[in-house]
């Protein structure tokens, strides 16, 4: 184990954190691969990994079985006869208590909620962050502090006043209302993210553009935006998963015909009427989880970076 340690002392702590968590360990491999220590480390990690994977495995297996097989077999056994019937049923026929056209309705609602909410919340927050980083005006920091502290206030404290505001605006119960709500509650974390990113860009760029006579919007669109694509991707991942997974706002701020997928899923699975079809339920659950899971597996390191950025205060 001697001399194996990569020399990181030149990197400062704050640079080191996101960089090293995304790029993995450095330095040479340990010499002995089958030492007792390694067996313990890998053994524990493999057991833990199996535990984390177990629910996903059970979900997939259950969703591919027919009901008779579920009643007699055990949930860990792979299906004897693979059937995609539950998936079809979950997508197109499952009943929520109000209607029986499956999760497809919720899926499209969620798409119609997530896409505009993501775009608008990121647009608003990036401009906010830009103003805070480069165009500070008197009082800006005060509002920003309120915003960040506000991120810790339980949503339950603010939902009713928001209901009233939205009702006054005439958008309560509509998709527009829900988009506004997602923009509001996405603002603290996103503004923080963008402010820190823009503040980290070289100031000379900004100054040079100012000298050349560029104004607020020109600098934003011509210089800041093209330079910040990575952080926009991080913000997008954060927002798409967050909004897709939201349940509370969907229930509170929309009418049943606009319910997002999570709400509809819950209504399908926890509806008291009818015989419980566990395979359909699991197929529906998987369908709902598919979008954030896909984003997670594709984005990989950026997802971790988004979380780290969201978690570590600037």
């Amino acid at each position, binding site marked *: 184990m001697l001399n194996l340690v990569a020399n990181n002392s030149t990197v400062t702590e704050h640079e080191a954190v996101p960089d090293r968590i995304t790029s993995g360990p450095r330095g040479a491999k340990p010499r002995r691969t089958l030492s007792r220590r390694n067996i313990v480390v890998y053994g524990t*990690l493999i057991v833990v990994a199996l535990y984390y994977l177990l629910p996903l495995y059970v979900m997939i297996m259950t969703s591919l079985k027919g009901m008779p097989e579920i009643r007699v077999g055990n949930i860990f056994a792979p299906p004897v006869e693979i059937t995609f019937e539950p998936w079809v049923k979950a997508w197109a026929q499952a009943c929520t208590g109000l209607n029986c056209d499956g999760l497809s309705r919720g899926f499209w609602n969620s798409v119609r909620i997530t896409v505009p909410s993501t775009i608008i919340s990121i647009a608003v927050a990036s401009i906010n962050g830009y103003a805070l980083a480069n165009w500070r005006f008197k009082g800006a920091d005060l509002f920003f502090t309120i915003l960040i502290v506000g991120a810790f206030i339980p949503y*339950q404290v603010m939902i009713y006043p928001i209901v009233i505001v939205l009702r006054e605006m005439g958008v309560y119960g509509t998709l527009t209302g829900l988009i506004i709500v997602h923009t509001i509650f996405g603002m603290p974390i996103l503004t923080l993210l963008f402010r820190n990113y823009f503040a980290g860009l070289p100031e000379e760029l900004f100054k040079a553009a100012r000298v050349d006579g560029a104004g607020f919007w020109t600098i934003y669109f011509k210089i800041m935006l093209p330079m910040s694509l990575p952080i926009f991707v991080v913000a997008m991942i954060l927002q798409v998963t967050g909004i897709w997974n939201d*349940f509370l706002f969907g229930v509170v701020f929309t009418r049943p015909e606009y319910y997002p997928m999570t709400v509809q899923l819950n209504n399908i699975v926890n509806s008291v009427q009818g015989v419980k079809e566990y395979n359909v339920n699991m197929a529906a659950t998987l369908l709902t989880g598919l979008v954030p899971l896909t984003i997670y597996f594709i984005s990989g390191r950026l997802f971790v970076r988004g979380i780290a950025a969201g978690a570590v205060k600037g």
Partner: protein
Amino acid sequence: MTGQTRGSARPNQWLRNLNAKIASIPMILTAVVIFLGGTAWTVLYSFTNSKLLPRLSFVGLDQYERLWAAPRWLVSIENLAIYGLLSLIFSLVIGFVLAALMDQKIRFENTFRTIMLYPFALSFIVTGLVWQWLLNPQYGIQSIVRSLGWTSFNFDPLYNSDIVIYGILIAALWQGTGLVMCLMLAGLRGIDEDIWKAARVDGIPMWKTYVLVIIPMMRGVFITTLVIIASGIVKVYDLVVAQTSGGPGIASEVPAKYVYDYMFQAQNLGQGFAASTMMLVTVAIIIVPWAYLEFGGGRKRA
């Protein structure tokens, strides 16, 4: 900061930097109207006897007296306390141990991290429903263990009021420990390798280095993680709705659900406002000391 504000000879204070101010209108509105105003509004109306609609007829602390006399609220608070304490302890311990294991310069680190973190990408609804299925006494883990020969094995947390909150805890830990692991790993990676070298030279065993040197050095990371977990705990709602709907009976009720049910179903707004104000107080008790420690001293700029 950037020089554009230095030319203070301009006639109108308000017009300076106008574009930035216009661009900040959404932020200012959110901060002042929603966050400050909304919170103040809810606190104010928690002292009224609003029923179906908010009305300003003050009844003093009536709503709070009723709240603290309601069995359902007491159960909610008790559940939140058990769930909160245990999920703090377990997620910190598990998260740290996993991070320490991941920091041993292992191979396949990315694979392990991907596996441990994927539940975090899933919603609480999905998490709750999966665990509802796994903990189903008729088909789930209980039936499997019984079919292996241990016929008296009993594990049906979702149908037993005494232990239902632990069933929810299991699901929550599955979903959230990956995140804690990632935060802790980031913290561990931020520690200077020289510390490890020095400890090795001095012949201090590894576990002792962790307990006596590394953990105290990671104080900041621990506190940040603690605040993140704690503010999540107070908000716990979807998971309970999906997994048990508060049942059996009222055994797994939580404050956030109490608020929602009173505001939007029981049409007893005053109760809902009082309950949400209590949630706010709970969060303040967690956040204020942290904010004081973190920013009050003004010692570092991260």
